[in-house]
């Protein structure tokens, strides 16, 4: 009885301490993580997102293809990677799958005003002010018409993040070279290999949704990913950062089971030995 009392005191002290340094301290340090806003409420929704894909393709070739390719539709960009880096400090993305991962209203507004949509005043793409709302609708319709429907987490991560972020442990190199990125963004964006361990899932979702949520003033642009795409990216980052989770969880059960049996045996032996005392 006395020993149980001591144990109880010990457990209470440990639990109070644990509560203080883990959940409590972290809630004070990090505050509330902002909920991701997948509707992009701040973005005007007056630009149409539907139209004629054929017309859209023409408009795309005339207005976008000098920098952007659409490999899937046989459109090659007008400039190669090095030329693009020389003028924009970053390699413009191929837009084959952009319709599948970016919210359509975000995309439409982005074409007209990239700096405001991404919350990055230094964003490399110039605003396409020459396009009418209807033109934008046609282009968005075109991009959506060629999208691949079910991209997996890895593909989306490469499409959405791979322009600037490397994932060294997966042998994925950023499309834009490090020096150019440093010039463009002020620093080399972090490697994403173990980002799933460095940050909580909720934080990553909120951060990808709007980088200003997590790091006010950061030069990482808001990408306008859809909810589904964001979650797939985060799931992927989480999985590559902790590849042995299933093995660990399964082995843990065995080890703990083994030790419970061990505790039973040692308890029986202790009883036996101590019975003859007193």
């Amino acid at each position, binding site marked *: 009885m006395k020993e149980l009392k001591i144990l109880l005191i010990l457990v209470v002290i440990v639990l109070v301490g644990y509560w203080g340094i883990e959940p409590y301290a972290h809630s004070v340090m990090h505050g509330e993580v902002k909920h991701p806003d997948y509707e992009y409420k701040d973005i005007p929704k007056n630009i149409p997102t539907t139209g004629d894909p054929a017309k859209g393709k023409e408009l795309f070739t005339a207005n976008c293809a000098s920098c952007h390719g659409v490999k899937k539709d046989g459109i090659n960009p007008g400039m190669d990677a090095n030329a693009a880096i020389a003028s924009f400090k970053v390699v413009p993305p191929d837009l084959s799958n952009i319709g599948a991962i970016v919210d359509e209203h975000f995309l439409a507004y982005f074409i007209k005003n990239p700096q405001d949509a991404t919350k990055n005043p230094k964003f490399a793409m110039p605003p396409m002010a020459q396009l009418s709302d209807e033109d934008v609708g046609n282009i968005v319709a075109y991009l959506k018409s060629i999208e691949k429907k079910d991209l997996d987490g890895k593909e989306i991560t490469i499409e959405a993040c791979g322009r600037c972020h490397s994932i060294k442990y997966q042998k994925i190199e950023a499309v834009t070279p490090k020096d150019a990125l440093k010039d463009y963004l002020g620093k080399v964006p972090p490697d994403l290999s173990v980002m799933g361990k460095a940050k909580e899932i909720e934080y990553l979702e909120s951060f990808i949704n709007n980088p200003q949520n997590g790091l006010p003033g950061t030069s990482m642009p808001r990408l306008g990913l859809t909810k589904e795409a964001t979650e797939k990216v985060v799931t992927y980052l989480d999985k590559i950062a902790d590849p042995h989770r299933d093995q660990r969880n399964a082995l843990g059960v065995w*080890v703990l089971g*083994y030790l419970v*049996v*061990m505790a039973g*045996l*040692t308890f*029986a*032996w202790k009883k*036996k*030995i101590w019975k*003859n005392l007193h």
Partner: protein
Amino acid sequence: MAEEKVSRRDFLLYAMGAWAAVGVGGVLYGMYKTWEPLPEVKAQATVTFDISTVQPGEIKVANWRGKPVFILRRTPDMTQCKDRSIKDEYTVVLGICTHLGCIPNWEADKKIWHCPCHGGEYDACGKNIFGPPPRPLDVPPFKIEGNNIVLGEEGPEYKQMKEKGLTA
């Protein structure tokens, strides 16, 4: 009475000991596994080589598991060998002397391999023709995939050769 107690204590003690041994076994297994080659090493277990890139009379060296593999495309003036060659004019052998493990050099004028260590010689088929080597140069496990040869995998051709005892 007293004896019974002792035996019961002993039984529990032995059970504990046995159970602890199971645990130690598990830990030792984990330790054993940590010494296995890393995935990047295991990835080198097979090497694919395009043999059509070898010109007649030329010899190329593929690095397979840290060992040199000689890929020779024989010309008609070299020793011919029906039994040690699957794709007619090719000789594919492990470039390690069967005597004491030195790496033999190709002597283009004599069209033989000459081992610098103890003077062993092999013909263009890899057969030992002079000196201390006890047997021909070994043929590494291979699989043929069109123009490619995959070193480190046992294809049907290799298995046939192995059955006939021609690989060593």
